[in-house]
C-alpha cells in the first residue's frame, strides 16, 4: 500500500523504513533490539497496544517512550538499551 519511506537514526545508524509504521515495527524491520530486563535478558514487545511497556526506547531524547504507540517520523532519533 504505502511505498513512501522515512529516514531515522537507530542506535546511531541511519535507517530507511516504511512511512506510517510504528517505531516498534521499524526497530523490527532493521533488526534493532528493544530493551534489556533488570536481569540483562533481551525483551521485545508483548502486547502491541501500549500496556506491557516492553517496547520502550528513547525517542528524540525522551526515555521510556512506548514505540508501539509511536509512528515513525522523518529524522527521528531512536536509542535502545545496549
Amino acid at each position, binding site marked *: 500500500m504505502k511505498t513512501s519511506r522515512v529516514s531515522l537514526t537507530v542506535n546511531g545508524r541511519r535507517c530507511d523504513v516504511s512511512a506510517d509504521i510504528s517505531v516498534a515495527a521499524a526497530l523490527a524491520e532493521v533488526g534493532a533490539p528493544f530493551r534489556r530486563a533488570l536481569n540483562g535478558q533481551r525483551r521485545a514487545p508483548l502486547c*502491541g497496544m501500549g500496556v506491557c511497556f516492553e517496547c520502550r526506547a528513547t525517542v528524540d531524547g525522551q526515555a521510556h517512550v512506548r514505540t508501539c504507540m509511536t509512528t515513525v517520523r522523518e529524522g527521528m532519533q531512536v536509542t535502545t538499551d545496549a
Partner: protein
Amino acid sequence: MREHYDVLIVGAGPAGLAAARAAASHGARVGLLDAQAHAGGQVWRRDVMQAAPGKARRHLQSSLRASQVDFLAQTSVVAAESGALLVEHPEGARWLTHDALIVAAGARELLLPFPGWTLPGVTGAGGLQALAKQGWPLAGKRVLVAGSGPLLLATAMTARRHGAQVLGICEHMSMRTLTRFTAGLWRWPGKLAQAATLRARLIDVSYRSGHIVTRALGDDHLRTVDIEGPRGRRQLDCDYLAVGHGLVPNVELAQLLGCAMHEGDAHPSVRVDAHQHTSIDGVFAAGETCGIGGRDCALIEGAIAGHAAVGARAEAAGLASRRRHARAFAAHLAQHFVLDARLRERIEPDTLVCRCEDVPWQSIEGHVDARSAKLASRCGMGACQGRICGSALAALGRFPHGGLRPPLFPVRLAALATASLSHAPASAVAPNAGSES
C-alpha cells in the same frame, strides 16, 4: 487552559465511535479521545498494509465526519476530577471539561506467565495482530498461535494476511467444550457465520484443541515451543508464538472515577444500567469495559450511551433488546472459555510473574494479599503499573485486583503538574440519567 465538551468520550474503538455518532446526531459537541494516532481501537486498528474492512470504514467515516466531533488523537487521560479530565498529548497537557463522560476504554489481552514467556518472539495473540497492523515484518516468519478464545482464529488470519506462515493453532479448550460453544452460536447467526468463514479460510492450518504451551525456548529470541495435548507432548520450531487467553476489561479510568464494578468476577468490569449509566452521575460506560462482549455489543452499547448522555432516552431505550441479545453472547463466551488448571500447573518457581521488575512466582507465594506481595517483592511496582501481572494473578486465582490511584498511565511530570483553573468546574445539569434497570 480549558476546553469544554457536551460529551467527552474516552476511547475511539467501536463503542466510542458509535457513541460519538449517536451523541452528535442530537447536535452535541463531542470530544473523542484516544491514545492511538488513529481511531478504531483494537478491533478496527488501522492496518498499514491493507484498507479497512467495509464496516469499519463506514463507522469510522460516519462518526468522525460529523463536524461536532473533535477526534483528539494521541491523547491519554492522566487524572480526573468531577466534570473534568486532565489529558496528555504530545504537545503538552490540558484540562477538558464535560457535561457527560462516556468511558469506552475497551479491553486488553489476558497474558499469562509460563516458562520462557519473556523471550523476544513471544507476543499476545491480539498482540501479534496489533504489531502486524502497525507494520511489524512478519512475511515468511513461522507463527504458532495458541491460548484460547475466538481471537485465535482472527490472529491466524491477520498473520497470514501479513505474509506469515501460520504453523497451527493450539486452543486449550477441549474439543467437547468447543463443540458445545459452537452449537450454542445459532442464536447469533452473524457470529456463527464469522466463525465458519474463518475456519474455512484457515482449513489448511492445523487446529489442535485441548493443547497448551508449556514452555518457550530460545536464547535471545524464541526458537522452539513445547506444547502438550491429550495425546502427549511435542515441540515446534517457530519464530513467533502469539498466545492469548481472551480479554480483560480496561476499567482503570472508571475505577478512578469511583464507578461501581461487578462483584465476584476475577476481572472487574463496570456496572451500568440499561442506559449505560454507571453509579457516578454523568458518567456512562459502554463496550468491553462493561464486560467482554465483542464488537457488536460495543456498537450497540456505544450508541445507547451516546443517546443517553444527551438525554435522548427514547432512542436509547429503542436499542435495549439488541443490547440484551448481544450481551447474551458475552455470557455464552464467558461460560465456555474458562481457564483450566494446567495453565497454573505449568508455572515454575522461577517463572517471572512481574516482567517489569523481574519478580519470579516463588517471590509472591506465601503472601496473603497483593499489597504484602508488592511490598516484599516489588511485583506490580514497575512501568506497566501492575496491569499485566495484576490481571494474570487475578486470572490464576491468586490475588484480586487492587485499588487505583492516578496517574492512569506513566505521564510526564510537567503534564501532571498542569493545574486546573478552578477545582470545581461549573457544570450544566447532567442530562437525565436515572437508574432504571
